[in-house]
């Protein structure tokens, strides 16, 4: 590894300032489970590490009125084990339980999973499906945006130099809504997603009142398939309907071929996983009677 300088700001303000000062040569350090291997593979070259672990405002999971606030430094293990997250956005907890290995989940953070912006990251599709928003903080102030608007490309985000992802804001689940996270990997333990699908459906009586499908590992960024809502809204849930939704998603997906799967195989997986995600989300929506 290269020679590094280590900074450990004591306040978010300081962190933002350091980030701005080392624009181009700095990197924020959260869990390090992506950053350290990226250094080893020569993919990361930042010379100034800005450790965020001393910032209490980035930690913790708490309900704030109709919003669940998840600090960016919340570890993936904490997300996986949190009863509140499981209640508010089950798909996110499910994605967290599948991410990496227990050793990685102990250190990796939800913020890091967003900010490293790897195409096969597990948490972003689930968060986006749940309508999560992100709060970004910089020396110039702060802004909020839809989680889906965060990614601009593979390993690229809207974050400006000196801007820190502070927290995820998850809206309260509405009655008769449910989510699901489905993933295909080449083995059962410690594996990366070949394709992942997060889905959320809302029911109005026996009909679907809204549906969101987000695809992971099928494009440089998590892909929200807007067409699904149009296809499903107002319809009765059925296997046939969900299969059609899967085919629509398979067409929209822009997968690449790599060592984990060909583009063609990924497309096929999208077509198979989307119906499973929609069916499970819908079954859960039927069960959720309280908001």
């Amino acid at each position, binding site marked *: *590894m*290269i*020679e*590094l*300088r*280590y*900074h*450990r700001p004591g306040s978010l303000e300081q962190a933002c300032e350091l980030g701005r000062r080392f624009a181009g040569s700095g990197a924020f*350090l959260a869990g*390090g*489970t992506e950053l*350290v*291997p990226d*250094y*080893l593979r020569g993919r990361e070259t930042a010379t100034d*590490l800005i*450790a965020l*672990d001393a910032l209490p405002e980035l930690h913790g999971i708490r309900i704030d009125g109709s919003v669940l606030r998840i600090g960016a430094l919340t570890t993936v*293990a904490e997300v996986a084990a949190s009863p509140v997250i499981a209640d508010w956005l089950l798909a996110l907890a499910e994605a967290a339980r599948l991410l*990496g*290995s*227990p*050793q*990685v989940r*102990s*250190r990796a953070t939800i913020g890091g999973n967003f900010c490293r912006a790897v195409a096969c990251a597990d948490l972003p599709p689930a968060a986006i499906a749940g309508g999560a928003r992100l709060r970004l903080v910089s020396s110039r102030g702060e802004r909020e945006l839809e989680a889906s608007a965060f990614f601009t490309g593979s390993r690229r985000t809207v974050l400006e130099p000196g801007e820190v992802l502070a927290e995820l804001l998850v809206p309260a689940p509405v009655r008769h809504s449910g989510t699901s996270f489905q993933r*295909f990997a*080449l*083995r*059962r*333990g*410690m*594996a990366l997603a070949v394709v992942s699908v997060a889905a959320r459906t809302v029911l109005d009586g026996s009909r679907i009142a809204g549906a969101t499908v987000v695809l992971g590992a099928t494009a440089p960024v998590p892909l929200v398939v807007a067409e699904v809502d149009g296809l499903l809204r107002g319809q009765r849930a059925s296997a046939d309907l969900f299969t059609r939704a899967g085919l629509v998603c398979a067409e929209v997906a822009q997968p690449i071929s790599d*060592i*984990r*799967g*060909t583009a063609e*195989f990924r497309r*096929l*997986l999208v077509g*198979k*996983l989307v119906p499973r995600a929609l069916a499970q989300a819908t079954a859960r929506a039927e069960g959720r009677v309280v908001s």
Partner: protein
Amino acid sequence: MSGEILVRLVVNGEPRALAVKPATTLLTVLRDHLDLTGTKHACGTGDCGACTVQVNGDPVASCLTLAAAVDGAQVTTIEGLATRGELHPLQKAFVKHGALQCGFCTPGALMSAKALIDRNPCPSADDVRTALSGNLCRCATYPRMVRAVQSWSEFDGVPLDTKPHTESERDQQRDHAVVGHAVTRSDAPDKVTGRAKYTADLRLPGTLVGKILGSPIAHGIIKRIDVSRARALPGVLAVITGADVPDTWYGVSPAREDEQILAKDRVRYVGDEIAAVAAVDEETAKQALSLIDVDLEELPAVFDPDAALAPGAPVIHPENPRYAGNINTRVDWHFGDVDAAFAEADYVREQRFVGNRTYQSPLEPHAALAQWEGHADRLTIWSSTQTPHYLHRSLSRTLGLSMGSIRVIRPAVGGGFGAKAEATPLDFCAAILSRMTGRPVLMEYSREEMVRHFRGRHKQYIDLRIGVKRDGTITAVDQRVVLDGGAYTSFGVITAYYAGSMLPTLYKMPNYRYHGLRVYTNLPASGAFRGHGVPQPRFAFESLLDMIAEDIGIDPVEIRLRNAMEPNTTTCNALDIASCELTQTIVRAREATGWREKKGRLPPGKGIGIGCGGFVSGAGHPIYRSDFPHSNAVIRVHEDGTGVSLHIAAAEIGQGSDTVLTQIAAEELGVPYDWVWLAECDTVISALDLGSYSSRVTLMAGNAVRRAAALVKTKLIEVAARELGCDAAALTARGGRIFLKESAETGLEWAVAARRAFAEGGPVVGTGSYQPPKNLGGGFKGSTVGTSPAYSFSTVIAEVTVDLETGFVSVDRVTDFSDAGTVINPLTFHGQVEGAMIMGLGETLMEDTVIDPTGRLVNPNLHDYLIPTVCDTPDIRTVAVESYEPAGPFGAKEIGEGALLPVLGAIANAIYDACGVRVTELPITPDKIVQGLRAIAGSMGHPVWSSDGAGHHVEALVR
């Protein structure tokens, strides 16, 4: 903010303050700053879990964790698990359940387990699997780990002993005192505490770190190397290139010595060794490598046998006309009259099969530590090797030293599976660099470097044709195999012979033709890997046999029974089979699995399949011509008579051979297991043993040990006979006593006899050696490969679930019945078989080394080269059938390699049963299954899925 940072940690309860660089990982701090070498470095990228420690209670990959980022944390390592010498109940559970083999992953697995039970003292099996899902174990002790963790609290407060944990682990068949009992492994306590020292754990004062520069291109001429910038770097003590190493060509096969320590003028694959450096630390060594300027003239390269055999293909070894046309080895065998027999067959089917380039992936990277004693011109080398003797010999020949001036020590070895069966450039370069610098030099491959060095499984292109009578009796077999050898020979000559020689050992086949062609390519060299050359031909054979059975309407079990090998048979290729219980393994596997109710009757997506296999119990001939016995043991009784030293250089690499040899010694001597101390493998202490390959240790080293023990016993019985005033022939020894066979009360303590013997004549010593029968083999070219004093046999029935939408295969259950002769230790026996099942599952379903169009490895890591995790492990049932092998010690033969062989075919056949897709190209990935399912949907038939495989140049040569 820059430079070093002060980090405060509480490590295993002790406060520590350390100055570290920001980039320093917690792993480096533990191993290099605090000497806590129980935490292992295996992949360095967080993909294996060997470096797991607890940070504030959580399991953490210490290789991914910057020390600075855990300032103030409580860190617990494996060394902190035991308190005041008393093992933690988890550690005892691992020992008692045999939940470790090579032990390299064990500390990390234990720390993950500890983090689990701290939160959840009564975990379910699923909880354990989740908690251990980030801990790869290539020996695949997963089922035992799960049981051990679940039962940890049973061991709380229970003193640790070596007794079998459960009665069910006991051998049911013969009345021995030690042999046949599931005593705990002799190396287990060291391996569960982190005390076991692997090569890279050794610390000598002043040790330098060596690194090797590999070629960036697949084929080229070295025009110029400039090392001046590297030499000038502060902290660099030596830089060597091809010009600084002996001109000797070397290789583990004397028939094809085609390797050089460092490239002299030509590089032949990406990674081919060009230069090496020794420096004060790893960082400096790596930096020095980057300062070496190499001017290479790139040549056209070939990456598969077809391209290598094409007219005008670049010649990879122009130095030797013998390798013209890139042909490394050619085998032409014909036994019986194959053409006539095919003509007589009622049904003939032929199929092309293609294998995968699997890598052994031992968790421990190769390492060597060399110390040159300049004044005596002697070399001591500690090396992670399966074959200390071949390493010893290679060092002697390449460095021009007598073997007497080289001392080879094999510390604990973290798995090999064939990857560590020959000397590596690490061994040679460490020795040379140590001589140049006068200091010890430690060299270790990174995960990427070890995969680049490779010596993994040959990718084989197999054309197999089988002819049968209407009742399924095999009349003729024709096999043509092209092996992609990579740039060097390694064990490849032998691989090419093994790929043909072992087929006739399993089923009776009177007529057999085999053409083998091993071809050089500009890829990392392939070598010997568990089952050496045989798994892919066996996969092909078991698959094609099932296809034929279906075509002619015979049950797959029936067709195997009809052709199964019988005891005391000489095969068509002149191999002598003595004990053979293949039929029993097939029949019992069928009964145990409910085969009749399941085969062809399971719901869509569920399938059952059978495969058989078997292997040699030690090669009948060494790699090089030699009259020496293959295994040699010395036993010395301690003067007090309550301890025994066993000196043997057999290579414990995780399979449990030290334990088995200790049991054999104890049994024959008539003393308790705990009395025997097995001296570490050190050529100064122990005599020649050929090492751990060809599944030879239990039979060969076991016989040597038994003979040495018998001599000692005879001496002591003579003393006892005099004391007791009886005939020596009337006495026997058991459990630490020598007594009358007819009347056990009359006798004396073994130790008393031993003390008397020592008083009379000094040290009581017995020696024993083992040499296989001299006349093995048929006398035709290559007939020695495949010879063995004994053969193992086994049957596996696999039950699978195929996701008919995604093609994902879950292996739900595997049932193994093995004929391994007498089982010396049920604990290690079942552990080996379980490991073979899981490794076989990986080879069948997920493993392949992928090469890009420029010859670079795409997945030289544990991130994208997937091996099975605990979560991928099926229910496994393993049974040893009743068998006795006259050539083996107490009737024993091999288990480690043979057990792997049936697995590939059994799973492939089960997948076919589940979904109608016959995949003939390994690995059987979901993608291939889905393509097969689509083809079925399109054609309403059962397609055979295969890609193009090798092309017409190969065809032309082998026909």
